[in-house]
């Protein structure tokens, strides 16, 4: 059948479809798509400061997407990742506000507390699934909302700044409690090293480890995995907690480098975005960093777009969402052809 050009341009179709769809939306609002997209492009890559912002936003996104590769492999829908990021931020903030240590020790403890916070929240969702029979989507979603409510409680209650009144965040942390930043930007090289390490661990775990195989068995068919001696409950909770720890680390990066304090909506929707990243990468490990980087550029560009044209920055979310939707709808041409052939034969 027709090999060649169709297969080659196929991966581009979702991108084109998403650009076309958002162009129509822009025209509806009497804005020029060319102006808007060049504003987004400039917003993402227009200056070295902006490029550093894209990288800084990319780091927690990559951490979350790496964690999700593990839960997806185990066949779990970890929608609760959003709350796991928030609990990570809360854990890091708790250490930052209550201890005064030398920078290396302080930051290590903050990161450990953040990972523990994320793993705890993920562990609850895993426990609810395996012991309580509550699907991880519903448990995770409820826990996301509880995490948001907990943040609002903390920043308007016990962790309220002394001048009071504001509902926006805690006091900014001292220099020793924050990740060292590159040249006054929001980008922390240390965070990049941590994210790179985490991603490599995930890659090795998925490709060359018994754990990866167990997770795969669990994801494909949990009953036969159980019969083969994989303790499915234990593996599922572990996979969740591993992902939660990485998400928590992402939360620490958010409070300790992107911001300098715990804020409302601290996660910035990165958890949901990471789910889209992994879906757009079609669960292929090596694609994840690139897709995540692309998403980070789109969202940072959309913020500049809003500043410049007063158009709502949700345009960036629409662009990424439509892209993933079209990937789902267009699918793999080879797989689709297979389906069609099976139908013709049958």
């Amino acid at each position, binding site marked *: 059948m027709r090999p060649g050009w169709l297969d080659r341009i196929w991966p581009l179709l979702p991108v084109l479809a998403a650009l076309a769809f958002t162009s129509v*939306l822009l025209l*509806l609002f009497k804005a020029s798509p060319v102006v808007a997209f060049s504003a987004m492009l400039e917003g993402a890559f227009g200056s070295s400061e902006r490029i550093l912002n894209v990288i800084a936003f990319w780091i927690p996104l990559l951490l979350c997407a790496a964690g999700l590769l593990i839960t997806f492999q185990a066949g779990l*829908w970890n*929608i609760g990742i959003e709350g796991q990021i928030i609990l990570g931020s809360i854990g890091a903030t708790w250490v930052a506000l209550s201890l005064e240590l030398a920078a290396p020790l302080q930051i290590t403890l903050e990161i450990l507390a953040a990972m523990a916070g994320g793993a705890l929240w993920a562990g609850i969702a895993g426990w*609810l699934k395996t*012991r*309580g*029979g*509550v*699907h991880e*989507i*519903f*448990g995770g*979603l*409820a*826990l996301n*909302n*509880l995490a948001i*409510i*907990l943040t*609002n*409680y903390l920043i308007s*209650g016990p962790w309220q700044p002394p001048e009071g009144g504001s509902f926006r965040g805690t006091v900014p942390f001292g220099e020793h409690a924050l990740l060292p930043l590159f040249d006054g930007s929001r980008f922390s090289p240390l965070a990049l090293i941590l994210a790179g390490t985490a991603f490599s661990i995930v890659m090795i775990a998925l490709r060359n480890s018994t754990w990866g195989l167990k997770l795969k068995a669990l994801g494909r068919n949990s009953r036969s995995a159980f019969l083969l001696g994989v303790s499915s409950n234990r593996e599922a909770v572990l996979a969740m907690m591993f992902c939660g720890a990485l998400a928590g680390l992402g939360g620490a990066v958010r409070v300790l480098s992107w911001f300098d304090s715990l804020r409302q909506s601290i996660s910035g929707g990165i958890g*949901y975005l990471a*789910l*889209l990243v992994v*879906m757009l990468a079609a669960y292929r490990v090596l694609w994840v960093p690139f897709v995540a980087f692309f998403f980070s550029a789109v969202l940072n560009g959309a913020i500049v777009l809003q500043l410049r044209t007063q*158009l*709502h920055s*949700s*345009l960036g*979310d*629409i662009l990424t*969402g*439509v892209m*993933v*939707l079209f990937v*789902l*709808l267009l*699918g793999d041409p080879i797989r*689709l052809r297979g*389906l069609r052939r099976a*139908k013709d034969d*049958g």
Partner: protein
Amino acid sequence: MDNGQLIAVLASILLQASPLIIAVCGETLTERAGIVNLSLDGTMLLSAMTGFVAAHLTDNLMLGFAAGAAVGAFFALIVAFSSIQLKQSQVATGFVLTLLGDSLSAFLGQEYTRLPGPSVPHFAIPILKDIPILGPIIFNQDGLVYFAILLIFATSWWLFRSRPGLELRSAGERPEAAFARGVNVRRLRYLYTVIGGALVGIAGAAYSLDVKIGWSEGHTRGLGWIALAIVIFGGWSPVRGAIGALLFGATKAAATVLQRAFPEVSVVAFNALPWLLMIGVLLLVSNKIVGRLLVNAPPALKRPLQRMLQVAPPAALGTELKNE
């Protein structure tokens, strides 16, 4: 609280629960046919926005509801197409549409926030409204409430008492067997996903045109997920689902009363309530925890209690039809 106040509270619970009841009936139809439309939260946001804007621009209430229904039906059609035609994961498509509906509603509705618009008028039903107690609670409402109540009984009758309803359930329970007996499973699944989606769309518009009049970003955020959880709590039955929606409304009303009575308790405790309730209720109906708690209970207590609480999803929910 005197009787008059109590009746007013009960009437307001019924009104507040009406959109949820409509959404729960719609999603119950869809899931009974074997498809999970997970996009409810995004669908309701987008249809609340579209419904309000359409009614605001045309000054026609019915057009508002029609626009909401169209949005819901369209999103549902995407879910049905990708799962039935393309064999994609229903959860994946539903989740993407959840996010997309949310951001589309924020973008498209950005110029229509906090504007006045038409709202569903009050309409007391003559004679029936004079029935003591029940009259002022049920029959002194507006059209939306009557629609929700009729919908409960209509969907319940359709599902469990009619011939097409039997075919509907067979598509969700034993699709292969239904197919072998000549039921067009694919067509039924398309049909009930789209009908269910249209009802969810009407529910979204019901918020912006009646229960929570107007539009602002994130107007109904979270309520779609609540509706999805109530479908499970309701054991995929419209009547039990409606009871769940009413209980949810009653708990929220009780929280408001308690909040006024105990102002020293942080508002956080009350905000957290719906989500704690969601976890608690799903734990209760899954039978894993209750089963363990009741291990040593006498069978005379255990069996009716479990029968009352335990629910089971349609056997083929979320799976593809295989023999084609």
